[in-house]
């Protein structure tokens, strides 16, 4: 079955297949008859379409009620520049990039990502979940050569892209510490014992140790204190 994509605000003209302009036809939108204002001869005219006009449009020959033409109209927008970010929370294993569109397009989009390190193309393996994310394994470490990531988003109405360029170290950002627990100290109401773990996503804390910073405040005060 036929799908037709149109921009919000566009004027859409649908012909009833091979029927002449002066043929007697009936148009329906999602099964409901369409009336005079939308008709110009046997053509269906939709001016300044909006999202609510997405749906199935069908054209029947006047007397025989044969279906002469059918299309699914999807009203949407071309993509705006996507928002892209890359981060290594598992250094030195690799990094991931994730993206989203700042505003919805209301029609299907495909995303294509390319990662280049110097002259080498690298494969960004798409994650099953979430869908807008892919990950790359580092082949080289300690390189001074920058990485260049380009994301292109395409739909039936247009395309757009964005590029990030960065050094290996610049995107390193571990996940937060895990199992953060604050326990009162027996017989000392002015003390707390705080314990925590390295984030489990950080693969080698011995070779790449993490530094932690702790701040605290009594609920009744607004100022933080730093340990």
């Amino acid at each position, binding site marked *: 079955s036929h799908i037709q994509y149109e921009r919000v605000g566009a004027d859409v003209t649908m012909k009833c297949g091979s029927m002449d302009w002066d043929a007697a036809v009936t148009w329906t939108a999602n099964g409901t008859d369409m009336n005079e204002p939308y008709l110009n001869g046997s053509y269906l005219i939709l001016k300044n379409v909006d999202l609510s006009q997405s749906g199935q449009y069908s054209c029947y020959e006047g007397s025989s009620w044969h279906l002469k033409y059918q299309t699914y109209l999807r009203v949407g927008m071309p993509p705006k520049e996507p928002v892209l970010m890359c981060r290594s929370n598992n250094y*030195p294993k690799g990094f991931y990039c994730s993206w989203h569109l700042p505003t919805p397009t209301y029609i299907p989009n495909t995303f294509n990502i390319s990662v280049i390190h110097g002259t080498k193309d690298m494969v960004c393996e798409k994650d099953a979940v979430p869908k807008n994310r892919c990950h790359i394994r580092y*082949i*080289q*470490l*300690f*390189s*001074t*050569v*920058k990485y260049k990531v380009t994301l292109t988003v395409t739909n039936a109405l247009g395309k757009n892209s964005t590029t990030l360029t960065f050094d290996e*170290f610049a995107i390193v950002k571990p996940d937060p510490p895990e199992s953060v627990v604050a326990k009162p100290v027996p017989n000392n109401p002015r003390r707390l014992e705080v314990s925590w773990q390295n984030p489990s996503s950080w693969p*080698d804390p*011995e*070779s*790449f*140790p993490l530094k932690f910073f702790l701040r605290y405040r009594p609920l009744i005060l607004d100022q933080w204190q730093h340990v």
Partner: protein
Amino acid sequence: MAAADSPSTALRRRDLCSRGIRLAGKMRADVVDLLDAYVERQGLDASASVAAVEGVPLAAVERWDEQTGTQRLLENLAAYRAFRALLAQMLEEQREQLGEADAGLGRALAAVLLQVSAFTYHLEELLRLESRGIPGEEEDGPPPPPRLSIFEQKLRGLGVLRELAQWAVRSARDLRQLAKPSPATGAAPGLPESP
């Protein structure tokens, strides 16, 4: 590397590694500061891409986590020996170009050169502990490269400092790997097995 480590050897290795790690950390911080000063004094663009220059050891490495302890030490040693020569050359060029006009930059370069020499010594000591012969420094070495223009000298200097900044990070990680307790057999990470 057949013999198990004696306790004193293990202790000495740990001691050399932790001093080396601290030295690498300080070196990294000083080189990063020097990079900023160098870019400014030499009138360079900080974001300029510098093509890999012959003779400048690249810090980039594949399969870093699979390297043996000995490989790490040998690669580090070769790199820092090269940096020692390159920095000495940069000092010389800087004196020629700027004379005494920029004593600050010269002092900063000399300070980093000193740290590179100290780190080289650490590496040699660690290699002695591994009962490895220390590769001799080539007396004649490769023929001296053709004389570069002043601009090319500056760009190469930028490349040298950038790679050294990366090497300092890599070295700290290498030493941490080396400092990890040996497996139960007592053999420190030794020569790679042949495939």
